[in-house]
C-alpha cells in the first residue's frame, strides 16, 4: 500500500524541466517503419559501406597498441588528434590554431553542438537558425533556455530550363537582418547543408558575418560535410572571414569525414575564450572521449595532411565516388516524376513530390499530418523505399511552405541505389 502511494506521489514530480520538451523524434519513427517494412533505406543519413582501409587499419593498430590505448586520455582531446586537427585546419584557414586551447574533441559533432549551446546560450537568448536545419538544433537551443528564431532559405524561381540546384536556395539579406534583435546571441549555419546540399558561397557567408559583427553575435558553424562538394563548389569556412575567428565555433565530424559514423568522434574549433567554455561543459557531461578511436582518427588526418589536394586523398576520392551516385540518383528521380534539387555538397538530395499524385485515403496517416510525412509513409509501406520528410527540418511556422519535398541519402552501395532505382521505375508505369 505504502509503496503504491509512494509511486503515485513520485510520478508527479519526476521529470526535470528540460526533458518535458521531448522532441518528437523523426529518425526513430521512420527508422522503425523502414525496418518493419524491410524498405530499401535511403532515409538514414549514413553510409552502408565501410570506412576506408587506412583508417580501419589505424583503428586495429590502436586497439592492439599499448595499454594506454585502452585507458583514459587527455579530457579535452587525445594529444595526437588535437595536434593534427590544429595543424590541418590551421593550414586551411591560414592561422595558427593552438591544439590545447582552440580545439575540443567531443563524442561526435552532436556533442560539440550540445556543448556549444549549453556553454554559450543563456535563458532568454535568441538564436537565429537558418532553415532547413538539422533537427537537433531546435531542442538543443530550447534546452539551453534559448529562443529559436527561424529564417528560411528560399528557392529563387528560375526560367524552368535549368535543373534546380541547391545553389538556387538563398537567404534574403533583408529578411535575415530583420531577425537580429538586442537579444540575439548566436546564428547557426550548416554548410554543406543537410538536407538541401547547399554550399554557401563566400558572398553569402559575408552577409552573415557582417551582421554578426555589427550586432556582436556568435556564430555556430556546423561543417560536418565539409569535404563533400561537387561541380567545383568550394567549401568556405566562415571562421576564416575577417572578424569572425573570435566569435565562431566550427564543428566537424570524423564520422562524416571518414565514413565511420559509429566511431562518434567530433570536434569544436574556435578561439580560446570560446572553446574554454565548451571545455567546461564537456567536463561536466562526459569528461573525456574514447581513446582508440581518437588515435585512429589522428592517423587518418596525418595521412590526409600529406596527401591533401592529390588524387590519393580520401577527401578527393570520396566526393568523386559520391558525384557518380548523385548523378545516378538524380536521373532515377527525374524518371519517376520526382523533381530533384541537385545538391552542391553533402550526401543528401531533396526531391519535389508535387507531380506525383497519390491516394492516401487508405493509409493510417492523419489529415493534419504534413503532406511529405504522409508521402514518406506511403512510400515505405506501399513501395518499400525509405526516405525522410523535409518539413521535419523546418520550424512549425514554415513547415507547410516546404511540405512537398522528401530527402534521399546517396552515400550508399550501388546495389542499394540500384534497388531504389527498380522501385522508382515502377512509378511512371503505375501512374
Amino acid at each position: 500500500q505504502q509503496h503504491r502511494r509512494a509511486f503515485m506521489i513520485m510520478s508527479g514530480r519526476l521529470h526535470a524541466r528540460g526533458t518535458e520538451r521531448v522532441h518528437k523524434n523523426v529518425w526513430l519513427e521512420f527508422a522503425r517503419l523502414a525496418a518493419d517494412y524491410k524498405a530499401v533505406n535511403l532515409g538514414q543519413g549514413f553510409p552502408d559501406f565501410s570506412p576506408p582501409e587506412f583508417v580501419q587499419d589505424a583503428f586495429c593498430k590502436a586497439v592492439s597498441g599499448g595499454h594506454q590505448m585502452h585507458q583514459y586520455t587527455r579530457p579535452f582531446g587525445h594529444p595526437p588528434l588535437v595536434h593534427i586537427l590544429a595543424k590541418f585546419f590551421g593550414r586551411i584557414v591560414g592561422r595558427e590554431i593552438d591544439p590545447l586551447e582552440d580545439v575540443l574533441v567531443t563524442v561526435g559533432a552532436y556533442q560539440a553542438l550540445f556543448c556549444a549551446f549549453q556553454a554559450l546560450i543563456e535563458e532568454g537568448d535568441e538564436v537565429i537558425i537558418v532553415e532547413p536545419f538539422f533537427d537537433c538544433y531546435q531542442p538543443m537551443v530550447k534546452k539551453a533556455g534559448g529562443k529559436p528564431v527561424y529564417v528560411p532559405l528560399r528557392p529563387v524561381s528560375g526560367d524552368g530550363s535549368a535543373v534546380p540546384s541547391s545553389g538556387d536556395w538563398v537567404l534574403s539579406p533583408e529578411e535575415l537582418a530583420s531577425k537580429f534583435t538586442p537579444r540575439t546571441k548566436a546564428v547557426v549555419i550548416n554548410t554543406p547543408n543537410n538536407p538541401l546540399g547547399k554550399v554557401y558561397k563566400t558572398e553569402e557567408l559575408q552577409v552573415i558575418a557582417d551582421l554578426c559583427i555589427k550586432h556582436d553575435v556568435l556564430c555556430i558553424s556546423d561543417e560536418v560535410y565539409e569535404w563533400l562538394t561537387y561541380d567545383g563548389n568550394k567549401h568556405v569556412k566562415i571562421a576564416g572571414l575577417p572578424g569572425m575567428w573570435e566569435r565562431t565555433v566550427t564543428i566537424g565530424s570524423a564520422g562524416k569525414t571518414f565514413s565511420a559514423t559509429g566511431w562518434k568522434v567530433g570536434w569544436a574549433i574556435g578561439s580560446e575564450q570560446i572553446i574554454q567554455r565548451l571545455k567546461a561543459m564537456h567536463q561536466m557531461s562526459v569528461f573525456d572521449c574514447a581513446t582508440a578511436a581518437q588515435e585512429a582518427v589522428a592517423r587518418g588526418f596525418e595521412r590526409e595532411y600529406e596527401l591533401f589536394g592529390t588524387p590519393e586523398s580520401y577527401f578527393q576520392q570520396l566526393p568523386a565516388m559520391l558525384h557518380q551516385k548523385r548523378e545516378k540518383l538524380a536521373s532515377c528521380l527525374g524518371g519517376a516524376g520526382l523533381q530533384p534539387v541537385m545538391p552542391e555538397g553533402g550526401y543528401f538530395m531533396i526531391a519535389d513530390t508535387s507531380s506525383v499524385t497519390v491516394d492516401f485515403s487508405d493509409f493510417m496517416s492523419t489529415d493534419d499530418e504534413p503532406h511529405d510525412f504522409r508521402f514518406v509513409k506511403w512510400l515505405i509501406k506501399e513501395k518499400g523505399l525509405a526516405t525522410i520528410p523535409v518539413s521535419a527540418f523546418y520550424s512549425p511556422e514554415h513547415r507547410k511552405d516546404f511540405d512537398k519535398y522528401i530527402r534521399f541519402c546517396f552515400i550508399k552501395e550501388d546495389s542499394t541505389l540500384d534497388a531504389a532505382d527498380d522501385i522508382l521505375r515502377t512509378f511512371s508505369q503505375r501512374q
Partner: protein
Amino acid sequence: LMHLCFVLQNIMTSRHTHTKRIEGLDKNVWVAFTSLAADPSVVNLGQGFPDIPPPSYVKEALAQAASVDKMNQYTRGFGHPSLVKALSQVYGKVYERQIDPLKEILVTVGGYGSLFSTMQGLVEDGDEVIIIEPFFDCYVPMVRMAGAKPVLIPLRLKSGKKTVTSADWFLDPDELSSKFSSKTKRRKHLHTTGRTSDELQMIADLCIKHDTLCFTTLPGMWDRTITISSAGKTFSVTGWKLGWSIGPEHLMRHLQTVMQNTIYTCPTPLQEAVAQGLQHNFELMGQPECYFSSLAEELEGKRDRMAAFLQEAGMPPVIPEGGYFMLVDVTPLNQDLSHMVQDEAYDYKFVKWMIKEKKLAAIPVTAFVGEESKKQFEKYIRLCFIKQDSTLDAAEAILKNWRKI
C-alpha cells in the same frame, strides 16, 4: 580612430560572458593533478585507471567488431542491441528480476555520462540531493548544474581501532535522517568506500519514508533507484568510456531523453566488444575464471601488498572492502609544509610536495568532500592499486626510502 574602434570592440565582446550553468567549473582536481603526474619519472598512483592490460578477448572483440562494415556506423541511440541484451542478462541474474533491455537500460559515455543523464533527467531547480562524503568529485557540480542544492553528510570514523578498514567508517542514522526535507529528491551512493547491507537498508527505509529517489538497489527499491555502472571499470578499459544506467521505465525514459538531446548514441564497435565480453563472462558467472571474480581476487593481493608497505612506512591505511583505491593517513609523517604558502588544504599541498620531492602521485581526499568536512579529511590521500607489480614495486621503494633525503 583605429584605437577607439579597438576599445569599442573589446567592450562589445565582453557582453559574451559565460553562461551561468558553467560558472565555477574550471577548478577540477583531475585536470590539475593529471598534468603534474604525467611526468614519466613519477610513479602514478593518482588517477584511477589500470596500467595492467584488459583481458585479451575484450581487445580482440573490439578489433573484430571494427572489421565489420555495419559496426562502424551509427547504432541504436539508447544502446547497441547486443549490448543491452547482454546487460539485461547479466544484471537480471544479479538483481534476480527480468530487466527490459530496451526500456530499462541506457548506454552512456562512461559511468560519468550516466551520472550526467540522471542528474539532467531527474533533478530539478530547487531540489535537494543528499550526498555522502567522501564522494566522487563530479556529483556536487552536476547537482548544482541541474539547479539543485547538494546536502552533504560525512562518513565518520569509529575511534580506537588499531587497524582501520573502510567498514569502520559509518553513517550516523540520526544525522542522515535529519538531512531529509520536503525538498529532498535523492541521495547518492558512496564512491570511495563500500557499504554494508544493514546501512543500505537504513538508507532505503529513509528513502521510502520520505518518498525519495535513490541510486542504490535493494529489495523494494527498484522503483526509485537508478544503478550506474561502467565497462571501463568492469573490464579495465577506462579509455572506452562506456557505461550504463539501469532502472524502472518511468525513470529511465527521462535519462533516454537526455541522451537523445546530448550525445544521441555511443560508439558502435566499442559497444559490440563490451557485449561480447559480458556474454563471455555471463556464462562463467560463479566460476573462478569469471573476470568479475578473478579481477577482484587479483586486486585483493595488490591491496594487501600496498597496505603492508604503507604500514611499514608508518602511514596507516584504511583497508578498503571494495573498489581499487586506498586512503592513507599521512599524519604520522609529520611533514612540515609551512613553506607552501598557497591557500590550500593540507592534503593538496602534501600531494603536490610528494609528487615533486618523492616522485609519487596520489590524489588529495578533500577533493571528494565539501567545505565543512575538509578539516576532517585533510590528512588523507588516495592511492590507486589497480597497477602492475612493477608500479607497486616502484611505489614501495619510494616509501622504503622515505626517511632518507
